[in-house]
Structures are given as C-alpha cells and as structure tokens.
C-alpha cells in the first residue's frame, strides 16, 4: 500500500463510463470522483462511484463481479481500451488504483464482441462460453463411489500442462482484446486442459469438433494470429493452446474423414 507520512494517497478522477440498456444504443457518461484511495481495487472504485450516484439520486452502473480475488472471471471491464486494464496478468478486481495518476481520465467499457451482447452498462451476456463448454468441456466418469486416486497415472509434465490450461477462468478478455472477436484462446485452453489428460481421451476427437463447431455458430471471429489475447489474458494463457487446438482439430477431421464404417464397400475392388 502506498503510504505518505502515514496518510494514504488519494486520487481525483474523471470517469467516462458506458451506459446502455439492453437492445438500445449506448453512450459514455462522464463523472468526477474524488478521494479514491490508491489501495482501492478498481471494483472498489466503481463501488464508490455507484454510492455517489445513489446519493445523487441517479441510476448506478451495472457491472459483473463475484469473487474479487481473480478466480471467478466475472469482472469484465475494458479500461482505457484494455480488457482488465493496464497491468498484464491481473483481473479487473486485482487491479489497484495506484496504477493510475491523479487527475487522470479513465474510460470504462463493457467487453465488445458480437457474441457477448450488452445486458446493461458494463455487464455482458457470456452464455456463448457456456454453450461451448456444454458441447464438449466435460469427461465421462463412473459416479457413485470415489475412485482410487492413483488408478490412472498422469505423467508430471502432462499434469503441469493441463493445469496451466486449466488456469483459464472463462472471463472473455481474450475475445474482448482480439481484433477479430475470436474465442480461440478460451476454447484452446478448455480443449487442451482435457485433451492431454488420460481421463479426457474417450471424448477427445468428439470434444474438439463439437467445441469448435459451437464456437463458430456463436458468432465469434476467426484467429489471424494477432496475439492480443495472450497479451491481455489475466492468467497469461499462451498461444500454444491455439496451436494445439489447431493440431487436434486437424487430427480429428482427418480421422473422421477416414473413419471405418465396418462394412465392405459396394462395388469397386
């Protein structure tokens, strides 16, 4: 925490915040906010703004948030053009106001992507991600009694790689930062997480084809290797997951194309 002679530093800010009702066009609204402690998180700053609005008898800004510790992925805000703000590798809830200057104008917007329609103000509908997960982001297990933990050996490097991919919190910053509105980093992370583990093998090809299909149908764009997603992902997921998604997709398509029907062909040799 930044301390100044025992007294905490504060900031006076100009805020340009997006105001929108569902299905209607939106616009920026300007507000001044004084005495923001530098130790406050960005969401706490937004709370201060909303309290000020309530006192003024005005409508508050809707924004998504839940855990406020960087693990749920709800806090979707594009701050000065950057999803999750100026510090790489952190979520909006982990972003502290000490990263801003006194007197600064801060622009706050929702995720911008056709697949993520605005619900209200800064809150967007990310159910397109849920649909992608529902189409293949699972494994089949025997339920009822707990299996013996070490029945299936998982090599340490594989476990590490799967855990790296599993770090994805499904926030959608990759889509918001991508100039194509592509969800490849998210889908790549989810597919990799399961496709490389022994437990994920049974559905491997089906999962890859189904999740990619659902992703395309949801209206996300196509990856053209800008790399913006990796640079804005709060969990620093790398483009490796996209390369591996492409590889698994090609593999699944080739296997599907040459799959056996189990019957001899009619005619021919």
């Amino acid at each position, binding site marked *: 925490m930044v301390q100044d002679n025992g007294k905490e530093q504060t900031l006076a800010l100009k805020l340009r915040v997006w105001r929108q009702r569902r299905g209607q066009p939106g616009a920026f609204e300007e507000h001044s906010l004084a005495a923001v402690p530098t130790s406050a998180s960005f969401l706490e700053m937004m709370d201060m703004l909303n309290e000020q609005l309530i006192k003024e008898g005005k409508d508050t800004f809707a924004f998504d948030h839940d855990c406020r510790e960087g693990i749920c992925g709800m806090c979707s805000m594009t701050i000065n053009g950057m999803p999750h703000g100026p510090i790489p590798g952190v979520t909006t809830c982990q972003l502290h106001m000490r990263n801003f200057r006194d007197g600064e104008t801060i622009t706050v917007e929702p995720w911008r992507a056709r697949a993520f329609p605005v619900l209200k103000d800064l809150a967007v509908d990310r159910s397109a991600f849920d649909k992608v997960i529902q189409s293949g982001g699972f494994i089949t297990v025997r339920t009822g009694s707990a299996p013996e933990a070490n029945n299936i050996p998982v090599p340490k490097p594989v476990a590490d790689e799967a855990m790296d991919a599993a770090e994805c919190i499904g926030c959608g910053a990759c889509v918001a930062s991508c*100039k194509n509105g592509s969800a490849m980093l998210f889908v790549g992370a989810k597919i990799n997480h399961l496709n490389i583990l022994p437990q994920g093998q049974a559905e491997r090809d089906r999962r890859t084809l189904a999740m990619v299909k659902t992703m395309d149908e949801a209206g996300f*764009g196509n990856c053209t290797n800008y790399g913006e997603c990796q640079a804005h992902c709060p969990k620093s997921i790398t483009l*490796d997951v996209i390369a591996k998604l492409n590889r698994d997709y090609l593999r699944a398509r080739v296997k599907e194309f040459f799959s056996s029907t189990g019957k001899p062909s009619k005619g021919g040799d």
Partner: protein
Amino acid sequence: MALTGLILAGFVLGHMTGNLLVFKGPAALNEYAKWLHEHAGLLWVARSVLIISVFAHIWVGIQLALENRAARDGGPADDATRRASVASRTMPYSGVVILGFIVFHLLHYTFRTVALGGVTYGDDVYKMLIAGFSNKPVAAFYIISMLLLCLHLSHGVSSVFQTLGLRNERWRARLDGLALAYAWIIALGFISIPLAVLTGCLK
C-alpha cells in the same frame, strides 16, 4: 488460407530464383523461358494450381476479414494494441495491393498488353524485361509491391506454422525470424532486377 498461402509462397521462391537467371545474361534467361514454353503441359498444370490458389486465397481472405469485422462489433472506443504486428494488421490491405500487382504484372509480361510501347519482343524475354523496367514508374511500382509482399509473407509464413499446430512459445520467435528472413529473401531477390535495370547494371 494456409494451404493456398503455402503454394503461393512456394511459387514466389521458384519464380524469383528463375528470374535471377537474368544476371547470367540474356541467353540463360531466354533459354529458361523457352524451356518453360516448350513444356506447355507442365506449365499449364502449374498455372492451374496457381490460378485456383490465388482465387481460393482471396475468396477465403475476404470472407475472413468480413466475418472478423462483424464479430468485433466496433471494438472499444480507444482500442489498445499490445503486440499485434503491423504486418498482421495490414494483411487484407497488403493483399489487395499484391492482387493489383499480379493483374498489372500479367498484363505487362504475360499478355504484354501494357507499358511495353506496343513492341512484342517475340522470344526475347530478356529484352522485354529491360524495356519494361526502363520505365521508371513501372519499376517503382514493382519495387513497392515487392516490399508489401515482404510484409504479407512475414506474417503469412509464420502463421502457417500456427495453423498446422507446429508452433509453441519456445519456437515462436525463431519461426517468426525464419518467416521474416524468407520474406526478405523473396523481396530482395525480385527487387534486385528492376533496381539493376534502373541503375544501369543490366542493359
């Protein structure tokens, strides 16, 4: 995109190498051109593959650009860019200029209907080439187009590896370097010819 791009990127290497025969003198280049025309069957196979690749590449490219623009929904008011390269962000634009170049280039040297002053040159490809590049604006257009081709290839060639899933963080920088080197070799190889004519090294 990757398959057609790969075919086109391979073609420019072959074409560039063939063109460099010009530095071995008129005989070498003209014999090479004659050899090509004598193997009409082979030439037409190559031409068909190229024509299909060019059209498919452009068609998918336009589709991609339109879909991606729609998916972004306008983007943020002040969009920040952290690492997307200039080459990656200008692919449709460099591509369109290269398309314009290909059309001009075919009219220039294959159909020989523009900028050659009505002279046909027969089988003397060498003479035709010198005449073509003695025209300064034409030579300049070739040079600028080749620089844009360099930009296009520098992103395109490295993207091929990603599309095929043959890339990771360890190899990313090396493959980007490889693509950049390839792009510059192609561009400088092509540019050396109009430049040599302009500076009087080739007559």
